């Protein structure tokens, strides 16, 4: 399946993302999920970013709301807008999952 998975939390309370398999997987960081794109806790990337085969996105509005800018973002993560999320949902992926 082609799945767009949304993460909106920093401290997660599920392990669904780790388990899900998808031939095409987008991980879209929104809300407090954007911290996975900018924080290196204990000097390390967030484990979220090690999900194999996934493409990572972060919503720039939510990044800037929290005081971060493009300069802080992990090179694995692409910054996107609300309009980009619409295109990802409607064209690139077939299913969505808000985890």
């Amino acid at each position, binding site marked *: 399946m082609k799945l767009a998975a949304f993460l909106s939390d920093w401290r997660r*309370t*599920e392990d*669904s993302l780790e*388990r899900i398999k998808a031939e095409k997987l987008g991980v879209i960081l929104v809300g407090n999920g954007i911290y996975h794109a900018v924080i290196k806790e204990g000097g390390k990337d967030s484990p979220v970013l090690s999900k194999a085969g996934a493409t990572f996105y972060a919503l720039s509005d939510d990044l800037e709301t929290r005081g971060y800018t493009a300069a802080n973002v992990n090179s694995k993560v692409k910054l996107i807008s609300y309009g980009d999320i619409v295109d990802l949902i409607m064209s690139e992926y077939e299913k969505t999952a808000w*985890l």
Partner: protein
Amino acid sequence: MGAVKLLFVVQRPPYKSENPRLALTHAIASQTAEIYMDEGDSVVPTVVLVGDGVLNAVKNQQAMKLYGVTSTESHIKNSLLIDMPIWVCKEDMARLGLKEDQMITDAEELGAELKTKFVSYADIQKEMESVKHLLFF
């Protein structure tokens, strides 16, 4: 469109959030959705309890007695009564030390024929792939 398959995925324990309950009540509502649909259309829901969501299926919940609120157990049993599949992930039960005799296995007292299905995560993955829409709670 014919029959559209939906998968309701409950990932978290009951009561601290309304969402596991809403997953069940929304899934049950598929029974009456016909009034809004064209002739021949229908929705076919399955509810899976996965991760800590398996805690929703622990039996003997006393929510009504102690808090005056319908228990999640009661929603699960009503689901079985209307033949809506309830799947519980076996690996997560094992991880949390839950045995089958602690779990809601059926709703025979209500006259339900369907029983809870204890499945492996691989079955859940397969179902995620086969449905049209996913609803994570």
